């Protein structure tokens, strides 16, 4: 198991973030949940050690992409979580530096696997 890392989780649905925290927590990850654009900015301004960001774009407007740019500027790897299969969302995400796009509902095992791989690669 890797040392404890901070994962930033972004989304508008609290329950979704709780579940992410629960499943990632079982794997030994600490999560920081953010439910609004303002909070997101606030967290980005602070120089916190964030290993990976999981951004659920549902419920946000197109300003969310600017925040993705910020993440890229800070060299924080990023996974976008999308409510549907969409070529537009995929292009936009990859264009903004996302390592991948996951479509809901996620399979827990796959998500954990992906997170592990990404973090190992960034070590």
């Amino acid at each position: 198991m890797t040392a404890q890392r901070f994962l930033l989780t972004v989304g508008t649905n609290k329950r979704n973030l709780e579940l992410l925290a629960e499943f990632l927590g079982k794997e030994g990850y600490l999560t920081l949940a953010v439910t609004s654009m303002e909070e997101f900015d606030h967290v980005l301004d602070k120089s916190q050690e964030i290993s990976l960001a999981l951004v659920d774009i549902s419920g946000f407007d197109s300003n969310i992409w600017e925040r993705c740019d910020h993440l890229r500027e800070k060299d924080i790897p990023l996974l976008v979580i999308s409510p549907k299969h969409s070529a537009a969302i995929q292009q936009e995400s990859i264009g903004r530096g996302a390592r991948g796009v996951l479509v809901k509902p996620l399979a827990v095992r796959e998500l954990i696997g992906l997170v592990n791989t990404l973090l190992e690669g960034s070590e």
Partner: protein
Amino acid sequence: MNPTTPNRISTGIPGLDDILEGGLVPGRSYLVRGGPGTGKTTLGLHFLTAGAVNGEKALYITLEETESNIRRNAEVRGFDLKGIQFLDLSPVSEFFAEVQTYDIFSPAEVEREPLTQKIVERVTALKPQRVFLDPMTQFRYLASDVYQYRRQVLSFLRFLTEQGATVLFSSESSVEAPDDDLQFMSDSVIELHADEQGRGITIRKLRGSDFRHGRHSLRLTATGVEVYPRLLPDEQVRTFVAEPISSGAPELDELLYGGLERGTVTFITGPSGVGKTTLGLQFMKEAAGRGERSVVYTFEEEVDIMLHRCESINIPARTMVERGTLHLMKVEPLRWSPDEFAQLVRRQVEIEKARMVMIDSVAGYQLAVRGENLAGRLHTLCKYLQNRGVVVLLIAEVSDVVGDFRVTDANISYLADNIIFLRYLEINGELRKAIGVLKKRLSDFEKTLREFEITRYGIKVGKPLTELRGILKGAPEWIRPKE
């Protein structure tokens, strides 16, 4: 209630135990399927309470309705839920109020584990002998795919039965979400219906046991579910003497060469108002004199009117009723299903020892059958009564008052051992009645017609009408002119 056969456990519903040839085989799983409001939950309550009264441990696992709701509804119906444990896994109201909804993972990922854990903990701790799970279909939404669902259900059922439980689980089936897979997976399938034929219950499969096939009637009463098994004639064969029994009217007996034999079916046929019911009651009056009980099921006439009519033609029906030698029952055809009706008849024959049964009329009975196979139903009922040595009288009205002769309007005359017909005749410009016998299976009979009259002293049957021809046409002529 029938005693449960060894190695069987009662469902708590006597009629259902009958259909299952004694009850449920313990340690197996039973699927109870049916649409909304067919009585699945009530059946489950019967099953659990039947175990609880014997000191068995009974567990109700609910995934949909809340425990308090179930308890309330059960109390209204008079179920004693003492001794029944509940595992309430229904969604709490906070689920809706506190934005507990999520979409990031499938419900299968999030909820299956805590749910199965709760069930496993409870079952392992309680070791129940009876489990009712309502409804199993809920698990479909907690499985990521069909394969997972099948595996989960199978292993879950195995887990429960390995713990020593007999399991009843319900399923809701609809066109969008059929439950055919569950039917393959369970040892047995009990299906409940509610449709234009009324309520019913069918056993689709019963592993390790025989059962009574076909659809049986079911009634949801104020106190729960009642099941009326379909009559099967072959299983109750009884020996009896097919002696002829007299009508009490000597000329009528002459016509029948002695009377009607026990264990035979007699059609009394004729147009409206000709005296078919009265003729039947004449046999019953004589039977009452011998101390035998007769039963009349009237589908059309009110009992009071029938009693009054009898009194006015010298049949002491009221006295017979008081002495228990006659039972008149008005049957509302749309209220009773054929199985329930059969149950009524069975009770009269087996418990009250009725020796003669009259169904007045076949057309009324046809209404009770509600579009089902009339001949099949009537055949079963008659065969059952025959096997019991009962004299069966079926009143069949023909729609034509005069004209060419017909036995009945419905094609059921093959059922008859005997056919007695009554008809109107025009003789010398006067309306008269005649009686004749068309068929008699167990003896010879008189081939001529006799005049038939209903007077205040009773039925009067005249001498054979030998000088007439064309009687069956309704407009007879004298063979030779009267001197």
